[in-house]
């Protein structure tokens, strides 16, 4: 099940209008992604860490989420310095460690950690539903938003159906192997899952129609307004502008 432990909080960051958080997170990550300047990257990392602290999230949980990225970063650190062309700083037999490779690795590391932290601080501090509605209010097509929300709601129901079907083939003595029979069984299983999902979708759509749904979602939550929003918007805009100046003028 998808848990949203970060979305329930009362911190300063949680209270800011989700619209602003999404806009700022988008631009901030964009700057981080295109930047090549280490000063900019380090500064961004600091801001990202401050944002996470301001959101008062559980440090352990944040580190756990970061560990997924760190795994990929380790892979990059192993492969990139050995395969990238450029000035060698150290030779290991026929291989050499290249300086540009190491610089690239460092950039990728800083960038990915900063962007993930920004998203943890700004995006994961709202529920998926709020994210959906807010994206919709920011002119993301309604169909995409419906897809996001419906997937979020029904993915578990489909998983449950998968488990049921899987149990049904297991109790009849099926043990998977590398043979046509196994492939066929799995193909049937997936096919059946699609059938079930589409029948379910039909019923959900009927249930929605019965409650007066006509293609438009309304939300209970209206964006809050106030001093906090303005302060956040001004501060973050200044920071982003500052980053741009650092990147392009120095």
């Amino acid at each position: 099940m998808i848990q949203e432990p970060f979305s329930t909080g009362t911190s300063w960051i949680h209270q800011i209008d989700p619209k602003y958080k999404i806009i700022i997170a988008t631009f901030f990550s964009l700057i981080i992604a295109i930047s090549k300047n280490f000063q900019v990257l380090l500064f961004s990392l600091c801001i990202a860490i401050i944002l996470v602290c301001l959101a008062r999230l559980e440090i352990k949980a944040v580190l756990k989420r970061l560990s997924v990225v760190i795994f990929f970063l380790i892979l990059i650190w192993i492969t990139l310095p050995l395969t990238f062309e450029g000035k060698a700083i150290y030779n290991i037999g026929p291989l050499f460690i290249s300086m540009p490779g190491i610089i690239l690795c460092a950039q990728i590391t800083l960038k990915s950690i900063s962007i993930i932290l920004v998203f943890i601080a700004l995006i994961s501090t709202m529920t998926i539903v709020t994210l959906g509605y807010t994206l919709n209010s920011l002119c993301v097509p309604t169909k995409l938003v419906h897809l996001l929300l419906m997937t979020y709601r029904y993915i578990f129901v489909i998983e449950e159906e998968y488990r049921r079907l899987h149990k049904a083939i297991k109790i009849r003595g099926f043990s998977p192997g590398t043979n046509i029979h196994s492939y066929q069984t799995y193909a049937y299983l997936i096919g059946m899952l699609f059938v079930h999902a589409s029948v379910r979708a039909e019923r959900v759509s009927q249930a929605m129609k019965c409650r007066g749904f006509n293609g438009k979602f309304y939300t209970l939550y209206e964006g809050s307004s106030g001093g906090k929003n303005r302060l956040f918007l001004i501060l973050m805009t200044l920071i982003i502008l500052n980053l741009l100046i650092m990147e392009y003028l120095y």
Partner: protein
Amino acid sequence: MNSNDKNDLIINLEDITYRYPGSEVVVIDSLNLKLFRGNRIGVIAPNGSGKTTLFNIIMGLVKPGSGKIEIFGKPVNTEKDFEQVRRKIGLLFQDSDDQLFSPTVLEDVAFGPLNLGKSPDQARQVAEETLKKLGLNGFEDRITYKLSGGEKRLVALATILAMKPEVLLLDEPNTGLDENTKIRLVEVLRRLDLSYIVISHENDFLYDTTDSIFTMENGKIVPGEKIHRHKHEHPHETHHHHQHGVGSSITFN
């Protein structure tokens, strides 16, 4: 109560016939059904006898092959007509997972009222009141897919009641519920001042919640055993009279 007054005729089905697409088997065969204001009808029938289809026809979710549907005294044919019907008739689905699609309970209960044009504040208020009436206070922020089976059923009922319908169609409302939730559901239904049709497998449940029980046989609705076990504290018209007209119409005097 003039239950056979024409103004009190809420649902009137005449000679409805339906077969599944691509199938020769007639699921519903020249079925006649009349529901008057204040009626509480139970339908008991085996699986595959077309009970769910009957509800879907009333809601305009499937189109019958032939027959006449009149609801609140007006013939309904087009999708537009049925949109009006759905504002006044609430259908409780057999599987609550089909009905609860919003992540949180409050949003799901407010979904209907919002569609009916209520403002977010009004919708929230109606949703909270409805949940309270069903003894579900404190459920507002619960996640729908994490609710138990019984809780899901009660919340699904709340989503429908929040639209303030005049009639309920309940499709196996007690199936898969634990004893406690069943008792709660019976209490809720008895307290409601609404007309409804309940489909169920369980005689006892229908005895407790309805005034008359019918069965479905060969695609028609036929009177089942009459009920005299009235447990209602507020007596309805206890005098039921079943008339066998052409086909199998149900009339209440």
